[in-house]
């Protein structure tokens, strides 16, 4: 059961700001509550009031802003999954949304809540890193955009200040000629490992850009610029052949933590395995093939 609290339902960001200023640490921002309500039940968080942001106009909106896709903070995973716009611009985002937790969490949980909670075992964070995810933070003082990689500081820790509201995340869909994949591996409710990879191929059939992110294995998801650089210029065939070497490089550079989901050395080796698998899948997809890739306890998106 939940401890008692007051529930405010402001209808503008200004009201939200007022409430945060008035209550400070005694208030928690609330959208889907799939993480927040659990913390309250467990007694890991104590607040006097919840500030429900779902009635602030525009916060749930999914819209195109030129090349960029804006996903409102209070958009539910299910909405993202079914959004025609997301499917058109960045189908992998819609498909990954279909595999977050279980169907009930997807109906209620929100993108903003997921990112703001910064659970180290999050699918979205890993994927959005490959989409140059930018988090928009709003406060009375103004708005600022923070790159997702900087926004996520560590387990359950973000760059959001006490008086700021995460209003949206902006992702830059990959250019045409990009194949991507998201793999998540693990036995438990939260994934042990997540790998997001997108490879853009130019007219000559060579890798123009690679975007690789690995998450869940350590305090926060990271990109691998060195590995991405190595991939550039290769043909798809070369990429597939080079996959093990590139994967090893990623595994050497990844930061892993031992916890109930696995030991650090195991996670490091799984990084190698799944980055390699991701490279081979993407190389195939970029070549117009859909490889029959099924691995135990792995969701391939």
């Amino acid at each position: 059961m939940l401890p008692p609290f007051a529930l405010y339902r402001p209808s503008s960001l200004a009201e939200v700001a007022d409430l945060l200023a008035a209550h400070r640490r005694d208030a928690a921002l609330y959208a889907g509550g799939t993480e927040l309500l659990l913390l309250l039940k467990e007694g890991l968080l104590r607040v006097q009031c919840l500030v429900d942001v779902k009635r602030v106009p525009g916060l749930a909106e999914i819209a195109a802003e030129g090349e960029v896709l804006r996903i409102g903070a209070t958009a539910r995973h299910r909405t993202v999954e079914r959004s025609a716009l997301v499917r058109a611009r960045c189908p992998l985002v819609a498909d990954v949304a279909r595999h977050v937790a279980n169907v009930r969490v997807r109906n209620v949980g929100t993108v903003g809540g997921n990112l703001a909670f910064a659970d180290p075992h999050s699918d979205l964070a890993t994927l959005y890193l490959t989409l140059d995810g930018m988090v928009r933070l709003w406060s009375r003082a103004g708005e600022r955009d923070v790159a997702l990689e900087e926004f996520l500081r560590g387990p359950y820790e973000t760059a959001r200040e006490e008086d700021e509201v995460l209003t949206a995340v902006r992702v830059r869909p990959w250019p045409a000629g990009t194949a991507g994949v998201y793999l998540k591996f693990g036995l438990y409710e939260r994934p042990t490992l997540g790998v997001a990879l997108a490879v853009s191929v130019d007219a000559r059939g060579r890798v123009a850009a690679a975007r690789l992110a690995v998450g869940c294995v350590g305090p926060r998801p990271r990109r691998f610029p060195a590995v991405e650089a190595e991939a550039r210029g290769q043909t798809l065939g070369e990429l597939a052949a080079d996959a093990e070497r590139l994967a090893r490089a990623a595994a050497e550079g990844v930061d892993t933590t031992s916890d109930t989901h696995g030991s650090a050395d195991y996670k490091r080796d799984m990084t190698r395995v799944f980055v390699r698998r991701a490279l081979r899948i993407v190389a195939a997809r970029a070549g117009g093939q859909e490889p029959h890739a099924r691995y135990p306890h792995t969701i391939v998106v």
Partner: protein
Amino acid sequence: MPDTRTPSSFSITLSVNGRAVALDVPAHALLLDVLRDRLGLKGAKRSCDVQVCGACTVLVAGAPVSACTYLAVEADGLDVLTVEGLGSGERLDPLQEAFIEHGAVQCGFCTSGMLVAAKALLAEEPAPAPERVVHHLRGNLCRCTGYRKVVEAVVACGRASGERP
């Protein structure tokens, strides 16, 4: 509508299994407790309490939610379907009949959640393949049946509805 003097208490109106219900609830009241303790609908159960097991599954506006982690106030103005709302009068829902026929019920504690989850699935996908049923029921745990007969019952029900005129 919130009582602005005390945003700790709300008057809500919801439709539960087709019946309009008006209630005053505290802000922190969970839908599961309101259904069970205020409305006497004991079908949905509290089990894991962390949104994993699905024993508390109810439909809000047709979508399955974990009632154990869902504020009652969020259901204001919406339709809620619980296991008690399946079937009508003397007639069982085809899913309920399928569960009985296929032996998909043992201790019964997961059954309400399974039925409601399956109901939502069949509304979206009238004749799902077994893999689709398994994907959709990923969030419903059972310790008794081993799942096989549950999946069979849902698949059979889906297939049968396809054959019905």
